[in-house]
């Protein structure tokens, strides 16, 4: 299938571009931060979370996930797009017998796969850290998986937006400053109304409107993806 073939070429193109490094850096960074946090304040935190020590660890990681995801998305999209912008490979790629929809959606697929790898690494890292901190062998697998993957669904609209910005404007300052703005704004998610997409990564975690947030994220993410593809399909290629 063409889509799969294009995706496979994207995997070739991102070799040695620091993209895999970023995929590993995100989760490892979050885990290292909590290793430090718990390492320095071990007794205090163990006392504070004595009801549910694993839950305590998860909570401390989870609060950083939405912002890390958004930053990760921003950098990932920019690095992925730069592979094509740098030597203006668009004119060669898009003169091949492949639809621009396929090219665009394969990049989206690549982004999703890389971010899922990051999320999976975060699951493994959390378990490893918990065991290392001797939080016991009663590991709440379900919670860990839920908390590591659900915020990702909440960021799909942002992924679609950042991908479009990065692929459209060769000047990556545009997409990166947008991404950073969104990431910072997401820190104040608690204050936003529920219809603000930046609140969705948090809402997708749990809470009364979790399902709505997940559905809205999928729907808006898909819509933004379609709009981005439609624009990308029509635009002039320099």
């Amino acid at each position, binding site marked *: 299938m*063409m889509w799969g*073939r*294009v995706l*496979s*070429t994207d995997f*070739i*193109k991102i*070799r*040695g*571009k620091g993209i895999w490094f970023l995929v590993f850096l995100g989760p490892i960074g979050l885990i290292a931060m909590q290793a430090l946090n718990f390492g320095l304040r071990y007794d205090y935190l163990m006392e504070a979370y004595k009801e549910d020590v694993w839950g305590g660890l998860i909570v401390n990681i989870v609060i950083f996930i939405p912002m890390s995801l958004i930053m990760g998305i921003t950098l990932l999209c920019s690095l992925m797009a730069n*592979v094509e912008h*740098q*030597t*203006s*490979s*668009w*004119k*060669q*790629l*898009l*003169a*091949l*017998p*492949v*639809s621009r929809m396929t090219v665009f959606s394969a990049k989206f697929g690549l982004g999703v796969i890389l971010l899922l790898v990051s999320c999976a690494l975060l699951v493994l890292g959390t378990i490893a850290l918990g065991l290392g901190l001797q939080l016991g062998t009663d590991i709440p697998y379900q919670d860990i998986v839920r908390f590591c993957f659900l915020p990702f669904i909440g960021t799909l609209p942002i992924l679609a937006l950042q991908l479009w910005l990065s692929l459209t404007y060769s000047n990556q300052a545009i997409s990166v400053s947008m991404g950073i703005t969104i990431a910072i704004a997401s820190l104040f998610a608690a204050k936003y109304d529920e219809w603000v997409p930046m609140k969705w990564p948090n809402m997708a975690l749990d809470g009364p409107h979790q399902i709505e947030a997940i559905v809205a994220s999928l729907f808006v993410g898909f819509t933004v993806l379609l709009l981005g593809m439609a624009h990308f399909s*029509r635009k*002039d*290629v320099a």
Partner: protein
Amino acid sequence: MMSELVIQTRNLNKRYRGRSAVSNLNLEIAKGEIYGFLGPNGAGKTTTIRMLLGLIRPTEGSVQIFGKDLNKEKLNILRRVGSLVEYPSYYGHLTAVQNLETVRRILDVPRSRIDEVLDIVSLTKESKRAVKGYSLGMKQRLGIASALLGNPELLILDEPTNGLDPAGIQEIRELIREMPQRHGITVLVSSHLLGEIEQMASTVGIIREGEMVFQNTIQNLKDRASEGIRIVVSEPEEAIRVAMDQGFEGTMQQGMLQFPNLNDAQVALLVKRLVDSSHDVYRVEEKKKSLEDIFLQVIGEGGIS
């Protein structure tokens, strides 16, 4: 008589913010031809080529390739076209083989094709090196290699010899020249140097400020190298009258008599008549325009008189 057209554009126009980059272009390229697309810098060659490849949308007009509308059957058409637009595109951190592999997977041709095209452009030895370390000429060859990868029926090459050394230019020229004979490929090759096109093209299209000012065979262009005879005499105004009376179509320019295309006998006769009517004939010169002169004339005046 008219052979099958591989590329045909009708009233192709591209405007950028109201400024015309290409206007009313009617390109006609027949099958098996090497079509030289000529024009000075900024004439609109690359813009036209981008439109032929569907990279940019015409403001007006249509493109037909292989008799099909580019708008409707873009992917089917592009499957049969190999292209190199402006300076070469490549992924610098990948080797030549990896670069070609990214193209090969989309074209879905056998892996062995990569070795074949590398061999054609003589890059086999360097194929395992990151392309960012290549010289411009090597990158250009890699671009040509990827244009050839899908066994195209039509090759569109925008200034393919850009940045190549004389030996490289010669090599690419040979390569292009044998495309129609050996593989039945039609080639559109752009350049801003007539001298370069002259040696391979069968037909030329000359574009100036977005408009086609000449489109015909290279032979036709050469025939217009209006050879003429120039005669310098003592009293040109009277002399021209003498010549006209004898039926010679001449003009007077800068005090000299100009006659288009006279054969030897005619020249002899004309000189004899002039001498007979007691004009002093100082000089009889043959004036021959080089192809380059014609080209400059065409792009300078926007047409051949």
